[in-house]
């Protein structure tokens, strides 16, 4: 069994790590539009070429499929070549994707742009998350949460300029200009990215963390890895199923078009709930990440997943009230987004950070697995004739994950770390 040298406990953290986090967030912000601004271009593409909207949207599906499933491969390259080269390549591909789109005159062209964009964004996303894990072992949850939050919130900065350029000029010009800008920003920031040297970071004093670096092979041979994969899949599946049914639920409860009046503006309940989705998803990652740095990952998972499960059941019972629908939707989304920060941080705590690119890359496949299970929710609804069954299934998955977090994962991790000789933190969690 390969045993790599354990990293010594650092006496102080380098101030450089906050710069590293800043560059990582900048890369995420620049990459975000590939996903979030796409919706602005679709009507223009449809108007220009007269294609069916569903056919155009296939490009987006291709993008996210590629971005999700190539993560293990990207993780391999991150561990092998370091963050700078991978993000440099990612930035090149991210910029190239929109340049391809600016010249595309066929659906195949847009599909090619989607593949290139998926590779680029995948490289940037995976690397920045990995870098945050390595630089902030004492604040992993918060660092990853901020990085992932940057991806979600980043499009807010450029969505209006893009929309204005589309409206005033041509969508091709918007693709080309912003493709160049975003690619250049990422490639420039990539030049400054690096991993921490030995002794440059400090371990947490509140969370159990491995002082030994596991290889991917070793991680896969640990039962705790598969428990984490199961939990990750359950929670992401649950959240995706809930979102997929939200429109149907709102329709059946009679709140879909109900005007929610906030005095300074009014909006129909369903689009308002979906808007809250984006906000709450962004807040939840750094928030629960920060909480997990203080009370431990497993207890935070228990709180978040329980909140999710109970919130979903409550949504079914009380959602006929428009305000309850909006508030409970917000709670459901708030309790869901943090999965990406909690599981990445837990993986690094458990297996060390040297090979975390590959390890978390394989663990991240839970997102892809979850998406494959989502159509099953539709089948359940068709078979039972009601979305309530789907909601209970979702709640069951979340509550199962909450149970596993404290009753299975926590004891396994305590034994895991004890076997490695990791000392319990002073405030033992």
């Amino acid at each position, binding site marked *: 069994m390969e045993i790599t040298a354990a990293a010594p406990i650092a006496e102080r953290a380098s101030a450089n790590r906050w710069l590293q986090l800043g560059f990582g967030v900048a890369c995420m912000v620049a990459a975000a539009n590939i996903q979030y601004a796409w919706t602005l271009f679709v009507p223009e593409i449809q108007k220009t070429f007269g294609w069916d909207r569903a056919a155009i*949207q296939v490009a987006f599906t291709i993008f996210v499929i590629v971005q*999700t499933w190539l*993560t293990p*491969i990207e993780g391999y390259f991150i561990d092998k070549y370091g963050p700078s080269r991978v993000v440099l390549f990612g930035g090149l591909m991210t910029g190239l994707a929109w340049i391809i789109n600016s010249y595309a005159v066929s659906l195949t062209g847009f599909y090619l742009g989607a593949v290139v964009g998926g590779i680029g964004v995948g490289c940037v996303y995976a690397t920045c998350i990995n870098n945050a894990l390595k630089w902030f072992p004492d604040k992993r949850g918060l660092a990853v949460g901020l990085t992932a939050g940057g991806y*979600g919130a980043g499009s807010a900065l450029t969505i209006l300029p893009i929309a204005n350029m589309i409206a005033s000029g041509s969508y091709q010009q918007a693709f080309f200009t912003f493709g160049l800008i975003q690619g250049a920003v990422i490639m420039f920031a990539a030049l400054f990215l690096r991993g921490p040297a030995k002794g440059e970071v400090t371990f947490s004093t509140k969370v159990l963390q491995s002082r030994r670096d596991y290889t991917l092979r070793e991680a896969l041979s640990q039962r705790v890895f598969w428990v984490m994969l199961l939990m990750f899949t359950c929670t992401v599946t649950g959240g995706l199923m809930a979102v997929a049914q939200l429109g149907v639920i709102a329709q059946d409860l009679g709140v879909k078009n109900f005007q929610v009046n906030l005095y300074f503006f009014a909006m129909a309940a369903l689009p308002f709930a979906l808007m809250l989705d984006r906000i709450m*998803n962004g807040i939840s990652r750094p928030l629960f990440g920060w909480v997990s740095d203080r009370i431990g990952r497993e207890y935070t998972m228990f709180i978040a997943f329980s909140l999710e499960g109970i919130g979903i059941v409550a949504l079914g019972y009380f959602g006929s009230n428009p305000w309850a629908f909006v508030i409970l939707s917000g709670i459901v989304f708030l309790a869901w987004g943090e999965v990406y920060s909690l599981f990445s941080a837990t993986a690094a705590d458990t297996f060390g950070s040297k090979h975390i690119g590959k390890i978390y890359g*394989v663990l991240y496949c839970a997102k892809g697995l979850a998406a*494959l299970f989502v*159509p099953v929710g539709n089948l359940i609804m068709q078979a039972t004739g009601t979305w309530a069954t789907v909601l209970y299934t979702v709640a069951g998955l979340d509550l199962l994950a909450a149970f596993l977090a404290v009753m299975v994962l926590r004891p396994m991790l305590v034994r895991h770390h004890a076997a490695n000789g990791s000392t319990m933190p002073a405030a033992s969690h």
Partner: protein
Amino acid sequence: MNIAAALALQSIPFALLFLMSGASNRDIFCIGYAAALGLILSLIAFVDGHPAFPHVFAAAYTPR
């Protein structure tokens, strides 16, 4: 879809056998296999003949 998915899923036990063996380069195999299997299953699910699948599947991949 069922036949194609079944064929793809049948590869899992064999992949696990290889991962449990003492062969070298298991890390690279694991990474490549996970990516390939995921892409293939996603493709199968997306082009599935069931009318709900492409729409629901695509919706599952909406921004999160």
